Every structure is written in C-alpha cells, then in structure tokens.
C-alpha cells in the first residue's frame, strides 16, 4: 500500500498489529530469519520472532546503573522498552564461531550458509552500532533487512542524543516503524528507507499515512530526545581521554570495578575477540575458532612473560579510552552509540557518562 507523497518519495503507510504481523509473515515468506524482541528470563532479549504474538506486548523496562527490571506498561506497546541485555552484535559478530579448520587436506574455511536475517525493532543507537561494527569488521556478508523501531521511550541509562546517534533513525534501515497507541488505536507509521523496504510495505495491508500521522510520529520521536536519562559531557572526548592517561581517577574507578567484562560483552560495538585452537584427541583435525574477548580479561594483553595490563585501573582505562577516544584514531568515529547497556548491565553500576564527567571536572572542564 504505497503512498506517493512521503518525504523520501518511497511512501509511508500506517499498519495496525495485523499489519505488523503481516510484515513479519512477509519477511519470513521471503526466507528471512526474523529476530526481534521477546520477553525471556525477566528481560527483553533478542530471539526469533514467528509472529506478532511473540513480541513483548505491554512490557516496558526500568533501568538504572546495575539495575534492569521489566515492568507491565499501562498499554500494549510492543516496542515500548529500551535496550536489553543483548544487541544485534550477537548475530553479526557471534560470541563464538569457527574461523578455519586444518587437516591432512589443508586449510578450510567453514562453508556454513550465512543466515538471512531480518532485524525487527532495531533502535537508532542499535543501527549506528551495526554500522560501526560492520566498518570495523569490514563485514562482507549478507546485510540484514532492518526494520527499525523509532525510539519514543528512552530509558534512564540512555544517552544516544548526546552521542548524535538518535533517537531518530535517519539511515541504515529498510523500514522504520513509529509505534503509537492513542484513542485511535494501536498503530505503526511505517516509512521505507530503501526500495526493498518500499516493496515490502507495498505487500502489506494498511492505510496510507496522512500528514497528521507523520507529524505525530515526528513529534513523539523529537520529544524522546529531551527525555534521555543521561548525557555525555559536551567536550572533545578524544582529547579528554588522551589527556587523562595518567589520571589518578582510574584508580578510583578500579576500586569499584569488578573487571568482570560485562560492559564489553553487552556493548553493541565492542568487537574484540580471542582465537582458540581446538584439536580432537587424535590431533588430526584442528580448528581455529574465535570467541568474544574483553579487554578486562587478564590474558587479553598477554605476552610471553606476562600481561601488559594487569591492574584493574589500566584495564578500565583501556576500555573507556577505546570506546570514547582512540576509536576515533583507529576508525574515525566514536566507539560509543549511547545505548546505555554498559551502565545497566555493569553489576556494580559503573556509569561511563559519570566517569567521563569526573574526568572532565578533573581537567577543569577543558581537555
């Protein structure tokens, strides 16, 4: 159902829950493995979604430093929750994968067919993270079909607005949905971002979007920007971190930091990986596999003779400096998208925005 008068010329539609179900159905019919939010183990996690009933209707999230609770919402919104424990990294950069195998016949790359993913409900911060991850890993695989969910409900730990990655999704999506529940019912403004997205929308039952739908959606998203739970200091973070290498502040973080690595694991852009060599008892068949690593692991910087970064302070400094500072040097952009996962999922609630603010204060506000 294509409406030709939308801004990008591709057409906006308004879907109801049946329309969303049809969208999931159409993606599945096209052979996509649709991944989206589902309620599992007291959290909104990412898993295969077969129909709209799998979505966490009516569940919201209260998050804080080291704290995450799902809660019942007063409505039945399916995207009314902020970031959960997982990110799309789990699918684009799996926590473990075989790289090569070696046997008497030589070296082989495993030829498992790559899944044809469709990501349902990705936020602006997530989409920014997908772009960063793809850049760093120079991914050449199949790009997922992205159905974005515009963020109208930022959480207590969110700060995408200050990282300039959200709340509005501006690119990197095929279809963007803005969910709204009011007197006129439960509906989604669907805008296509690519021809593939437009083609998909054209197959769905829905009505054409009117001016009013678009205005409401835009104002909902704009309002979200003002409701971010956190802000990153408005300073040159790259310079701040470079100037803070010898700061005594790292020691104060180290007192609190467990060096457990949770922040790196939940971060949607943290890409570090360790290679493992696996052999069977015969030794004839060997494999090299890769698993998520963390700069908090003592072996991470291991050299013959010992690890470079043994203190907790140096390991926290490495992480935060890389996220906010040296990522710019290495990849020309920030490593942080402001999703707040590291804040919520740090068991002791260490807050990257607060630590950046503390470093800023220590340098008199001017790195």
């Amino acid at each position, binding site marked *: 159902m294509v409406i030709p008068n939308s801004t990008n010329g591709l057409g906006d539609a308004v879907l109801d829950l049946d329309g969303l179900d049809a969208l999931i159905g159409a993606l599945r019919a096209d052979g996509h493995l649709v991944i989206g939010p589902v309620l599992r183990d007291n959290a909104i996690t990412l898993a295969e979604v077969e129909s709209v009933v799998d979505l966490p209707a009516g569940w919201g999230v209260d998050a804080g430093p080291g704290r995450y609770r799902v809660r019942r919402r007063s409505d039945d919104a399916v995207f009314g929750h902020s970031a959960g424990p997982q990110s799309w990294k789990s699918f684009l950069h799996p926590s473990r994968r075989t790289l090569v195998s070696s046997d008497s016949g030589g*070296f*082989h790359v495993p030829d498992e067919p790559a899944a044809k993913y469709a990501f349902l409900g990705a936020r602006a911060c997530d989409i920014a993270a997908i772009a960063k991850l793809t850049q760093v890993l120079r991914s050449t695989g199949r790009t997922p079909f992205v159905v974005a969910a515009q963020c109208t409900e930022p959480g207590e730990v969110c700060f995408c607005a200050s990282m300039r990655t959200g709340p509005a999704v501006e690119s990197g999506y095929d279809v963007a949905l803005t969910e709204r529940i009011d007197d006129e019912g439960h509906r989604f403004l669907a805008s296509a971002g690519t021809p593939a997205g437009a083609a998909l929308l054209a197959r769905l039952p829905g009505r054409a979007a009117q001016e009013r739908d678009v205005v409401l959606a835009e104002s909902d998203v704009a309002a979200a920007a003002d409701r971010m739970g956190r802000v990153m200091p408005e300073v040159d973070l790259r310079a701040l971190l470079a100037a803070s290498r010898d700061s005594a502040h790292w020691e104060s973080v180290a007192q609190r930091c467990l060096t457990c690595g949770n922040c790196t694991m939940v971060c949607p852009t943290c890409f*570090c*990986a360790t*290679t493992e060599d696996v052999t069977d008892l015969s030794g004839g068949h060997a494999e090299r596999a890769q698993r998520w690593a963390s700069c908090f692991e003592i072996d991470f910087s291991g050299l013959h003779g010992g690890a470079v970064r043994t203190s907790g302070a*140096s390991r926290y400094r*490495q992480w935060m400096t890389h996220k906010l500072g040296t990522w710019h*040097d*290495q990849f020309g952009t920030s490593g942080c998208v402001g999703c707040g996962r590291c804040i919520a999922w740090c068991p002791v609630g260490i807050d990257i925005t607060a630590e950046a603010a503390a470093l800023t204060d220590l340098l008199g506000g001017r790195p």
Partner: protein
Amino acid sequence: MATDPWLPVAHRVRRRRVETKDSATLVLAPVADRLPVFRPGQFAMLYAHGIGEVPISISDIPAGGVLVHTIRAVGAVSRALHSAEPGAVLGVRGPFGTAWDVDRAEGGDLLLVAGGIGLAPLRPALRHALEHRSSYRRVTLVVGARTPSDLLYDDELRHWDSLADVDVVVTVDHAADGWTGRVGVVTEPLASIPLDATRTTAMLCGPEPMMRYCARTLLGRGVPDEGVQVSLERNMQCGTGVCGHCQLGPLLLCRDGPVVDLPVATPLMLVKEL
C-alpha cells in the same frame, strides 16, 4: 589466492638452520599460492597445525615467494614452529603491518640497533641498504645479545663486519670464554659510535626498555625525534585489526605498527600498562 582473511596459505619448510640454542631460521616455500611480497619490518602470522598461530617478522626476502623467518622458542607455538623440520607444512598469513621506512633514510646515515631476536626483523632492512649501498652514507649495525652464543646469524655478522662500507658493533651482556668483543648493554656503544646526528635515521628493535634507553641516548646526541623508528610488540591474533589485542593507545599495532615513528611511540611507551 586466499580470500578469507583467516585462511592460512600453505608453505613447506625448505630449510631449517639452527641459529642459537633456542632460535632457528626457517625457509618457507609456497606449496601452491603465493603471498604478496613482504617489505622489511613486516610480519606474518605463522600457524603450526593444532598448536596455534603467532606473529613472526620476515627476516629475509628472497625472490619467488619464499619466506624466511627466524623464531625463538619461548612457548608452545613458537616451540612448534622452531622445531618444524624440512618437509613440514605451515600455514602463513600476511604480509601484515608497517615496514621500516628505508626510503626516508636515503641520503643520510642509517643506524640499526638490535637486541636479541630483534635482529631478525632488521636484517631485511640492512640487506636492502647493502643492495642500495650508494643511496646511504654511513651504515652502522649495533647488535646486543645476552651471551655470545645468543647471537643470531653469526656467519653473516662476520661477513658484514668484513665489509668496508658497514660498521658492525656487537656487544654482549655476559662474556663467555674466548669472547674478545665488547661486554655491556647496547646503549653504551651508541653513546660513542661516530654519528652525523642530524642526518641519521635509526631503526630500533628489541625489548621495550632497551629501545627506550637507546632512543634517549640517540636524542641526547642530537638525532631528531622523527629520525627514529621502533618496532613494537603486543599480543596479536588476527593481523588485520579486527581482534583488538594489539592496541597501544590509539594504535592497532598489527595495522599501524609494528614499526612506529618515535614521536608517536614515545608518549605511549611512557604510560604504564597502556
């Protein structure tokens, strides 16, 4: 040609030469596909079946896709590589990383300072200079080793020493019977060797503290900051900047190194546990 960055290219050990009690030089010939040509200072990831893969510098660059690596046995993987006998097949990925900027030294003095196994990555640079001898003024090689028996390439050292147009200074920490050469750390000869400081390009490779002291000595003698290159070492697993292990501040050493200009390296080397 390997398309997947993780796919090693099979090479067969053609020759193995024992250098010292724990080091050996392997000459590797491609089994089928060749890797692109290495430049002095670059490294390869060498894979021993089932044991693992580690970064090893190119230590000579003959023609025909043949690779030469000198390996010191320190752990399981380096031990397996070190003991690979002729006929054995190893996996190789590369070339990776930055190279010694031999061109920049043209027209001036070239000083190479090696500590221990650090001579291996510098040998191709020296060979290059000797092949293009007329492009350089004075060429000096300073080599430090723990004991005389730890010196790599002893025949070659003697050969270079016999050449009129290269100065070779060898020093050992601990002398052994019959050793008539210098005893002491490598910084000592640096303080006294003839040097046209402002026109000198120095390439340093060895343990980090050694490189720091050498750099300080050279700067003290007036060698410009930007005239010094160092080869840095960190844990490396991918060689392609996607594993994150080799970070040193802003640098991904497998990509932005191992060879780094001193002005970039100094502030980083000075930070503890960076």
